[in-house]
């Protein structure tokens, strides 16, 4: 038996694989086995009812997708009343993603969702802070530290801060989130991007710009996850372009304690469970008894390999 369990951000997880917010919901219950997941992560909810953005809301680009769904939401109360209780039937812990446009509303929402059945709160701080010129909280270390501190005071639940890859210095933001009291970092949300239909000369999204996700972003987000894992001491959860166990392993090797799988589930509906199965197979095939042994095992001793490349020359012999 391979031991896939990890402790991460205040939770004990049966394995390090969970869905990314906004790509998972109760609707998938018949599609793959919910009991297999390391955790559940819900679509971000906001305090109030919202419709979301105009269509088209998605567009495909080379090995990736753009989305500007916005956050259609029935509001926090409906969520607490109708959705949270339904997750009680499964064992994996429930992580609720929340967001709001002002620190006050954010803190209120954190209180609202701190109810039985919720194991941790993921704070989506990539959303605009209306009190800071509409800049997203997670764009700068100061605003990140402040909002995390506010939320830390509002709830006793473990707090996972989900960072934005649009920040210029994600390592500094990671440190700030830790200082503010976050229990883990989710690295990261989507990368702001756009595409244009050259025939109509219109943006391909109704909202003009949107977030890029999928395999195309993996090398960028992996770099950021590595930077965050080095900058902070709290666990980092990698999220961006993970579609296979190999992708998940890259994130674990650079130091992530868990991973989230998003867009990949749209292509292969059972991607989450496949990643878990293949992680286990990889461990078995490579004599790895505990997935913990993989975490942070990046080998830098040869980073400055001599340029002789004996290895390369002998490779075909």
């Amino acid at each position, binding site marked *: 038996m391979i031991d896939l369990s990890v402790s991460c951000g205040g939770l004990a997880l049966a394995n390090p694989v969970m869905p990314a917010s906004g790509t998972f919901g*109760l*609707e998938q219950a018949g*599609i793959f086995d919910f009991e297999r997941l390391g955790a559940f992560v819900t679509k971000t909810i906001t305090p109030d009812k919202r419709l*979301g953005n105009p269509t088209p809301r*998605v567009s495909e680009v080379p090995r990736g997708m753009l989305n500007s769904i916005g956050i259609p939401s029935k509001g926090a109360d409906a969520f607490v009343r109708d959705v949270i209780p339904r997750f009680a039937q499964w064992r994996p812990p429930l992580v609720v993603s929340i967001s709001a446009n002002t620190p006050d509303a954010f803190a209120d929402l954190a209180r609202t969702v701190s109810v039985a059945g919720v194991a941790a709160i993921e704070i989506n701080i990539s959303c605009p802070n209306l009190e800071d010129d509409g800049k997203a909280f997670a764009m700068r270390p100061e605003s990140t530290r402040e909002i995390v501190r506010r939320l830390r005071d509002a709830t006793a639940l473990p707090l996972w801060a989900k960072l934005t890859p649009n920040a210029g210095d994600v390592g500094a933001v990671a440190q700030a989130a830790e200082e503010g009291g976050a229990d883990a970092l989710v690295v990261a949300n989507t990368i702001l991007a756009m595409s244009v239909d050259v025939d109509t000369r219109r943006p391909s999204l109704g909202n003009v710009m949107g977030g890029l996700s999928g395999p195309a972003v993996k090398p960028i987000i992996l770099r950021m996850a590595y930077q965050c894992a080095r900058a902070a001491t709290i666990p980092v959860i990698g999220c961006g372009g993970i579609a296979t166990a190999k992708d998940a392993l890259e994130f674990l090797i650079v130091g992530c304690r868990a991973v989230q799988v998003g867009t990949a589930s749209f292509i292969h*509906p059972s991607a989450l469970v496949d990643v878990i199965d293949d992680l286990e197979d990889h461990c078995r095939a490579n004599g790895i008894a505990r997935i913990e042994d993989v975490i942070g095992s990046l080998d830098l001793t040869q980073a400055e390999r001599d340029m002789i490349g004996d290895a390369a020359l002998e490779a075909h012999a």
Partner: protein
Amino acid sequence: MMMPMLDPDVVPPAAPARPVPGRPLEIEALVREHVCVNDEYRYLSLDLPDGVPHARPGQFYHLLCPGGDGLEPFFRRPMSVYRVEPERNRVGFLYKVTGTGTAAMARLWPGDGFNIFGPLGIGFTLPADTAPIVLLGRGVGLATMGPLVPFARENGHRVTAVLSARAPELLMSVEEMRIAGADVLTVTDSEGTSAVPHVEGLLEDLVAQGRCGALYVCGSSRLTRLAQSVAARHGLFGEVALEQQMACGVGVCFCCVRPFRENGETVHRRVCCEGPVFPLAEALA
């Protein structure tokens, strides 16, 4: 409301842990037949593995069109079932090449594998009694309507299909629907018979003759608005099959929403899991 309504947050409780028949599955199907129906449309039929669930009329599969040679579809593509043959473990699609994904699909050869995910969505509902029904379809809309004919006939409904196209040679399914037991009327732009007033006259005649107890429409918002007004005028049951771009296909991403009228308010519903078939009266077409 004769059609099951889903609240976005209300889903079946206590779903079983393993997929069972009736639940959508990712399936590695085999291409059985792939032919051109006319200049624009192709028919693709697949052999399914044993024991997989089958689609109901109006449901769809989410197709993983194969990449390569410069075509790189990233998302799956939604496609209604055109022919469902549970007893032979087959399913067929009628489609038009419009872009990357369908062009990639068009390169499939008999014997090739084709990864499909489904069946998905909510299909057509028949009226409670054996009221005669009328289908109104245009273009690829006909593909979605196709399996409704045998389904309605088997359940004792008289079926009249009003098929619309740009030109007579682009009309499809006429013979097939006749063989399946429908009375078929055709209207085309080139013959000048497809304009709204003329089609409205046809529908009014059918209502007058007692042949239109329910109305099903697909493939044109012009025809949808027409059907809505005829149905409202005579208090008829009706459904419309809608399209919208999809990513997940199962209701979690909220990219496939369309606007509907609900208690005087505009609300969004997801085409993939609250449709693609919706109550005719509520669609904002």
